């Protein structure tokens, strides 16, 4: 009886459990901490949804999650930061001409490719020539402008700045950026062997990260962009507003603490709106004939191709959509942080974490992927205190400065990744369907 209750109400029970965990943290470590975790859980859940579209719906393996997320972060900077007029005067035109040459090169090479397409060997050399000329020409305009821009007040700006638009706009723009990168990668790697996509996405994410670290004229590189505008009120303003002081008194909290909680609640509200919208779209899509087609392609490509489905094209579309969702989540993450730190994107580690979320949660099931996002992020954050406590407890018989004990304490951070690796291996072996398995017509 008990078991059937659980299996019938699996989704609400698991989500209630997750909520309970957050409440425990709220009571134990303070509501501000709990809300910070919740906000990042929400963003992780969106990324997990994006990966689930690619892996769960279509069986595409994307190792470049962090690259796409970084593109979203870049969008947040480019959309919301105020423009640096001086830098734009100094080098804006040069950069623009350089960009135009780049675009022209791309068009010229595709044109040449079409014209000489029949004789492959000539076409290769012609395209190579066009690219070489375009590259050399572009550099002539590009490099001096880059130097000029980076010379403008390097300690504060030294980059072009953004458009000065509201940061909420950056969320869809981040999605577009990621979609563009995904389109290029998908065009190259889809339709070939399945692991080529994995390797190609690994490569593109590494390059995106190197790009944003090194192109200071665009992103300030390792100097970071701080103080991104916010979509929600600032704590300082709240603390001075009369209505808020009243509210804080009603909550029975000091004003500073209440303001921090209020701001986090605002973020959580925004994120929940996005996630609800995405969830609605994703679920509707999955239940539609389109969703059935995608799963059919995933389960048997040959049969679907025989039924007249263009497998490569469908894969490309879902890959682009999934990456766009990841890019949007990346923009949201940067918005929440209020700063853009290129060094913070560790290509494989966090990608891997998102993957574990999807697989543990239940690949192919959106509710599962979302739950996985919550669950894994929660434990990723809480693993550090738990791990330290565990090591402390296990080595409590040793003296405080015993070398082994110190070594173990130092290594706690690495143990965290190792644990996630083991969790993934165990999950793939013993419960590959995840916490909330995919619903299939036959089982139901």
């Amino acid at each position, binding site marked *: 009886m008990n078991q059937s209750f659980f299996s019938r109400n699996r989704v609400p029970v698991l989500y209630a459990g997750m909520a309970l965990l957050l409440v425990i943290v709220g009571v134990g470590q303070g509501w501000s901490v709990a809300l910070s975790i919740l906000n990042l859980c929400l963003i992780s859940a969106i990324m997990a949804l994006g990966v689930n579209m690619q892996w769960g719906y279509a069986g595409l393996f994307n190792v470049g999650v962090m690259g796409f997320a970084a593109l979203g972060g870049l969008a947040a900077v480019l959309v919301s930061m105020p423009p640096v007029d001086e830098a734009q005067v100094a080098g804006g035109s040069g950069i623009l001409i350089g960009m135009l040459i780049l675009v022209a090169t791309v068009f010229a090479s595709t044109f040449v490719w079409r014209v000489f397409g029949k004789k492959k060997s000539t076409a290769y050399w012609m395209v190579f020539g066009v690219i070489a000329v375009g590259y050399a020409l572009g550099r002539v305009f590009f490099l001096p402008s880059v130097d000029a821009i980076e010379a403008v007040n390097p300690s504060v700006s030294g980059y072009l700045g953004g458009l000065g638009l509201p940061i909420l706009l950056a969320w869809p723009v981040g999605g577009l950026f990621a979609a563009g990168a995904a389109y290029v990668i998908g065009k190259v790697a889809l339709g070939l062997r*399945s692991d080529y996509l994995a*390797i190609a996405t690994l490569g593109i994410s590494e*390059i995106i990260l190197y790009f944003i670290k090194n192109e200071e004229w665009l992103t300030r590189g390792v100097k970071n962009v701080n103080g991104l505008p916010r979509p929600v009120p600032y704590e300082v303003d709240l603390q001075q507003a009369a209505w808020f002081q009243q509210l804080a008194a009603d909550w029975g909290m000091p004003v500073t603490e209440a303001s921090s909680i209020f701001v986090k609640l605002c973020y959580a509200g925004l994120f929940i709106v996005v996630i609800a919208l995405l969830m609605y779209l994703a679920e509707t899509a999955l239940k539609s004939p389109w969703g059935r087609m995608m799963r059919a392609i995933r389960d048997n490509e040959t049969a679907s191709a025989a039924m007249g489905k263009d497998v490569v094209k469908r894969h490309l579309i879902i890959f682009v959509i999934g990456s766009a969702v990841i890019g949007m989540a990346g923009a949201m993450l940067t918005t929440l942080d209020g700063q853009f730190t290129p060094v913070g994107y560790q290509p494989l580690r966090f990608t891997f974490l998102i993957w574990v979320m999807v697989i543990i949660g239940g690949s192919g099931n959106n509710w599962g992927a979302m739950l996985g996002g919550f669950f894994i992020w929660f434990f990723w954050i809480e693993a550090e205190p738990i791990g330290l406590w565990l090591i402390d407890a296990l080595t409590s018989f040793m003296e405080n400065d015993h070398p082994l004990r110190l070594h173990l304490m130092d290594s706690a951070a690495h143990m965290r990744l190792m644990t996630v690796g083991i969790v993934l291996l165990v999950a793939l072996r013993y419960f590959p369907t995840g916490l909330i398995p995919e619903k299939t017509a036959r089982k139901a």
Partner: protein
Amino acid sequence: MTDLLNALVLLGNFLVVPSLTYGSQLALGALGVTLVYGVLRFSNFAHGETMAFGTMFTIFGTWGLQSLGVSAGPLPTALLALPLGIAAAVALSVLLDKSVYKYHRERKASPVIFLIVSIGLMFFIGGLVRFIIGPGDQIFFDGTRFIISARDFKQATGLEEGLAIKMTQAVTIVTAVIVVAAMFWFLNKTRTGKSMRAFSDNENLALLSGINPDRVVLITWILVGTLATVAGTLYGLDKSFKPFSYMQLLLPIFASAIVGGVGNPLGAIAGGYVIAFSEIAVTFAYKKVVTYLSPESFEPESLVQLLGTDYKIAVSFIILVIVLIVRPTGIFSGKTL
């Protein structure tokens, strides 16, 4: 004439010798990846960490030998400690195969599942390595530093530019040649090697003709562990041992394997050198070379560099993309061992 010689020596010193060294390291790494692909049919993301694991034990062996006062004379002591590293990496590979991969193999899981499993193992081994030796840099090179130093070369030839050959570079190239030769002898001449190639070519036919699949898989992992340790140790001797940089090697290694044609050992070696040469050639600053070759008084203002050194990793990726577009099967097409 001297200008031309100077330019050539300059290129030799900063382009050819380092590329040959780095290319040998990549080739050995790519050979391991290609073997796994040929026999077990998946891309092994854990290969970089396996390299780090084997190297770590080689380092322990080196420290042990050093404390005993054993040395290899002018050669690095690490070469004597290699067997220990190899044994450790082989033991790890075989153990992980029995405990993890075997289950999925028996269920005939798709290659993507294997790939995900290998990423899980990558983090497992990576965590293990960082746990045991720590994430920091370890320099374990000893012995003579240079075979020919730049100064000796200048004195001997009277040229302005010197050609220096480091001991690590010579050791890398010689070891790579020996290992690759042994490998090909094994694959082409021995019965076991032939059965491996047969298994890679056509699994069903191989099974039908009585080849024991478990044995083939076991031998593959032994070879992979050996290759990974040798490649990792040579890389560590040449640069330094840092777990993170072994993770970074993954992309160039995959690129080498794919460029050469995944599953083709000859291709893996060619791919390694192609990737290494282009990485270094594209990010090399040609300013001095141009100065030597052009008439007097002309000196280029910029560094004459195609791409900043920061973008080294992009080069292997761009080559990978070009190969995927132009010839997805790689230079030496086919998927045979």
